[in-house]
């Protein structure tokens, strides 16, 4: 069990890294983009870059304020 936990922790750290919020923003932005494109019919190419830049700024602000 301990070994499994440490493997899980390694992969979490490897993929997600120091700030899980950034990963969450990317996943949510991609989901929203897919909804806008397929359900609403909007070619929302701008949404992901905007969310990524905002997430980076937010993460940097949190890191420098802590």
């Amino acid at each position, binding site marked *: 069990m301990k070994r499994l936990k440490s493997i899980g922790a390694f992969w979490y750290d490897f993929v997600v890294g120091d700030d899980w919020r*950034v990963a969450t923003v990317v996943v949510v932005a991609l989901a929203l983009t897919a909804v806008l494109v397929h359900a609403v019919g909007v070619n929302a190419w701008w949404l992901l870059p905007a969310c990524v830049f905002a997430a980076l700024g937010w993460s940097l602000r949190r890191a420098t304020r802590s």
Partner: protein
Amino acid sequence: MTALPLILTVFVACAVEAIEALTIVLAAGLTREWRSTFQGMAAALAVLAVIVAVLGPTITLLPLTALRLVVGALLAIFGLQWLRKAILRATGHKSLHDEASAYLREVAAAKAASASSRGRVHDWYAFTLAFKGVLLEGLEVVFIVITFGANQHNVGAAVIGAAAAVAVVAVTGIAVRAPLAKVPENAMKFAVGIMLTAFGIFWGAEGAGVSWPGHDAALLVLVPVVALVSLGYTVLLWPRPGRSQVARSSEKAVSS
């Protein structure tokens, strides 16, 4: 799209990780013994090669849309990690990765560890140190090789970029016989972070169904925009003259 951006991105990413691995390998080899160090290094490279050989062709079997969505998301997340760290280090909010001090730490630990042999490995400590160092640093490269290569259906070009970087770093390391402390690692990580994030945004959005204005040419805009935004954040976080050195030092200590 030509294979050049792919090869260059993988080359720089791999060079950064190879420099970090070299520091560990040198500490193990020069402090303990070279034979076990080379065994550990070879075992790690073999594991990494198997991962590329198995995952590379497998991932290219996925439908292109699904592949781009998943790989794009992973690359964007991964790229943002690299960019975040590079910006924090460039602005003094996180201490720079120092190969010289990392080397001294590894040497001190290697000298203190006792010797024991297992099977054909004469010095188990040197073996595991080299194995772990090369494997862990190499995993990031494998991730980039597979995701970049698979998305462009050119894993071979990505492998060429990675192999060239390993060769250059290894030859330089053998010639210098010291950690490559003067290489601008943070600037290289910054550049790789920009490329990973830009390609991640491009492929991720395409996977979600977006049609980019200008199609592939959108990348020619996206890469500089990511670079400019990242540089903008760096300027915003740049230490101001009014802030005291003590305050900055305590911030570094907290974040490192």
